[in-house]
């Protein structure tokens, strides 16, 4: 079955299982990647994805079509992931840090990485940095928006993002050194 988005939405709004499965098959892979970016373990990502799609099917009747369906689903996945990580954010409070970032010589290195290598590096970040990095760099939120979402100051959001970039830089360099056999210990 290959339905248009319009029919897919209507079918899901009517609660027809075939349409729901079709929608799941169409968007689950991309959304699973989103869930993986926000989680540490695969099981955690599966839980996020499962919970997110249940919310999608329950709330699709409220879908206003003022944005694309993919964007709307992604928002639900991100919010579900944030809910999962929220408790951990409180366990590891984020504070302002001062980091120096110079990515001028790392652009080519980043470009050489595959997306799953980059994914792995992102998942290795501390929880707070991982969340803020995803929200700013990949979801496109501004720092003041992130601060409201996570109930932190804008300064904390900026500093945590800088820290994320620094840590990524270290990991990328370390990986590159290892590849080239020039890693320093």
């Amino acid at each position: 079955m290959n339905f248009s988005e319009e029919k897919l939405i209507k079918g899901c709004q009517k609660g027809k299982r075939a349409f729901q499965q079709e929608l799941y098959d169409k968007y689950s892979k991309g959304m699973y990647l989103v869930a993986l970016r926000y989680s540490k373990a695969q099981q955690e990502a599966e839980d996020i994805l499962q919970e997110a799609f249940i919310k999608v099917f329950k709330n699709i009747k409220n879908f206003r079509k003022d944005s694309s369906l993919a964007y709307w689903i992604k928002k639900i996945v991100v919010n579900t992931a944030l809910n999962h990580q929220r408790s951990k954010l409180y366990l590891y409070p984020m504070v302002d840090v001062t980091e120096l970032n110079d990515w001028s010589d790392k652009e080519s290195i980043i470009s050489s990485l595959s997306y799953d290598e980059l994914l792995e590096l992102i998942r290795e970040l501390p929880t707070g940095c991982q969340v803020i990095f995803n929200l700013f760099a990949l979801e496109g939120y501004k720092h003041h928006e992130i601060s409201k979402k996570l109930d932190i100051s804008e300064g904390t959001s900026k500093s945590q993002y800088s820290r994320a970039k620094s840590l990524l830089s270290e990991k990328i360099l370390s990986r590159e050194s290892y590849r080239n056999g020039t890693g320093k210990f």
Partner: protein
Amino acid sequence: MGQGSFEDIIGKKFEGKGQEVPSGVWENVNNALNADLVSHYQSSHSRYRWLTAAAILIAISSFAIHYVTIPIQKKAETNSYNALLTKNFNSVQFQVSDLSAGHLTFSWLPAIILDKPENEPPVNIDNVDRSEELATIEIQTKTAEIELAEASNEIKSFYRTLGQSSRKKSSEKNEFWAGLEAGAGKFNPNFSGANSISNSINSSAAATAVGAGDFSNPSANAVQDGMNEGVATSVGFDFGVKIGRKWTLESGLAYTNLNNTGSASVNVLNGFSNNGEVRTGAIKPENPNQEELETSARIQTSANGEIDLNSNIQFASMPLKAGYYIMDNKFSVRLNAGVAANYLIENSLSDPSNQIISGAHSDLYNDWSFDGIGGLEFGYRLFNKIDMTIEPNYRYSITPLSNSITSPSRFVVQTGFRYTLR
């Protein structure tokens, strides 16, 4: 390298990418959705039972109230108008059988009173029995006060609708439906007042219907103790829209015909008449020089007759109802409330030969009247696209149909079938 460049690079890395999802995730989602459905039906099952019990109780109570405790007042055993006549007239009554006509019977009114000029010499009248007295019949009429029956109208209608979209999926928005309806029922026709009907009877037509005179005495017409219970039929169409998950708005147009029979006593006055035992005579004086005197009496006779009446009222009804789905599945319950505007098309009183006795449609009834409607509709999905519905509803007269007396409120039970187009 600026930050924008870094985010661009990162973003492009993940653009359009995905990861294979373990199969167990969809199974868990599927199970969760099924569990949600089951819990929904389980929680509403007890509601079904309570609502069903409440609906049955309401229906039984309503029928009990309207058929047992508030019975429709039957026709009086005695004809109060005729009773008045017998009270007010003392003279001998006699029948003139040769003046009967068909189902109509006539009884001449008695009361013969001598009316003779004073000091008039006795006269000899050829072929006249001078011992007989000529008289002017004095007719007293009264319009009978007829006690109106307590009004309680029941209209049972069946309607068949074609073309209604499914109500099963309450999540659909802006569903439209349209349908055709037809109905039949009973009603109590005495809401307008027998007195008013009497006054509306056309004199000449009534006289012709009686068949015994030139005109009728309007003040003497009296509808017999109220009209018989009649038959109401309606046909029309309805259409509606579903707003959101649970709200509906419905309207339509229905043509309604109220038809019932009854009878009326009609008092007919004749003009100069030499019929029957009314005579005039010429008086010849014994002295030829005297003027011939002729005594004549202006006689007015009257007859009291009964005519059958057929009352017909036609109006167009336009309801506007808002509905709220309490339940919307295979078994549905919807709460409806609204108003109906009724426009009088025509009303008439006629005799069995279809001669119009009263055709002035505005005399008794208002052109426009309004009812408030409140009801509870129960529906059951028989087949995929066919629903059976039953709706007891209460109609309160905001402005009356009759302009002589307030129309009463009435309880209505409607049943029917609906066909879903899509």
